[in-house]
């Protein structure tokens, strides 16, 4: 009797956390920091 392998298949599961490569996420974090972070800090020190 043929036995098919019972392996996990994560590709069919919905993403429960970011799945992009670490390098891409690092660029995303950098852009977020240099836009939202910069604006936040400017707002704090503008007055």
């Amino acid at each position, binding site marked *: 009797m043929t036995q*098919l*392998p019972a392996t996990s298949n994560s590709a069919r599961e919905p*993403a429960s956390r970011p799945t992009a490569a670490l390098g891409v996420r690092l660029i995303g974090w950098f852009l*977020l920091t240099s836009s939202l972070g910069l604006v*936040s800090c400017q707002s*704090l020190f503008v*007055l």
Partner: protein
Amino acid sequence: MTDDRHDPPPISRDQTKVVLPDLLSRVHELGQAHREPLPRSWPRPAPFRPVLLWVLSAPLVPAAVTALAAGHLPGFIGDALGWGLVAAAAVLTRRGFAGGLSGEPGERRFSRRWRLPLRNLAAAALGLGTCVAAVLGSGHLLSVGVAFGAVAVLGYHLAYGLEPLRLPTPTSALDKESRAVAAALAEAEERLLTIERAAVAIGNPELQLRLGRIADQGRGILEQIAARPSDLRRARRFLTVFLEGAEQVSDGYVRTHRQADSAELEQNFRNVLVTIEDQFARQRERLRQADVLDLDVQIEVLRNQLEQEGIR
């Protein structure tokens, strides 16, 4: 596999070249269909939290307070509104990764093809919040604020990812059999969602765990049917008897156990859940074995054909 099987009619070498790719694709298809889903724990693990959004927007809170103390109303509005929008983006991101707004314990995969793209809404809120904070809070020009917002949205996309919009498939584009399978899967998924809602409402950890395992088994069977629609005929009994029974029993228990909270009722319910869980596991295994048997027969037929071709 069996020695008493009649030999199939011989085929030519050209026909073998046609049959073999079909069989290989079927092996691949069955391998895909029988891959087990990741084991799910119940309750499900805590969803992803976008901590970076909270950290980066945190200075807007003291900035709003400072602007208000200085009597600078536009600054206060810009900082407060900007923080509110970024906070909304963080909440939407968390819910987007968790699976939805409604707080349903399980995701829909067959009964609704389109859902609100929460992470896309989060990106829009983040861009708008950054723009508002830049223009009203920091005093930048509108064009500069828009540029800040665009950079924030791009960063969000790279860091967390936007969701593709999945539009519903028009039913007219499906043939009759596909529509029947889709309708059966959607109905079965509704029943599983009722079971999952019952698990949450019962509040008993042990019964919750059992119902969760039943729902996971049921979802596994639906995945098998979706991957191999021909399994629908084999799983009819499961869909019409066991799944419907499990839904009615769990829903009925939720409605009655508060009024008649007796140990006997709980024990009876527990016994039924054990039986249902066992039946679900057996059904899943039966589908698996039936598919494997189909493949075995095809392999045996092809082997005999190849042997006959070699003898000539």
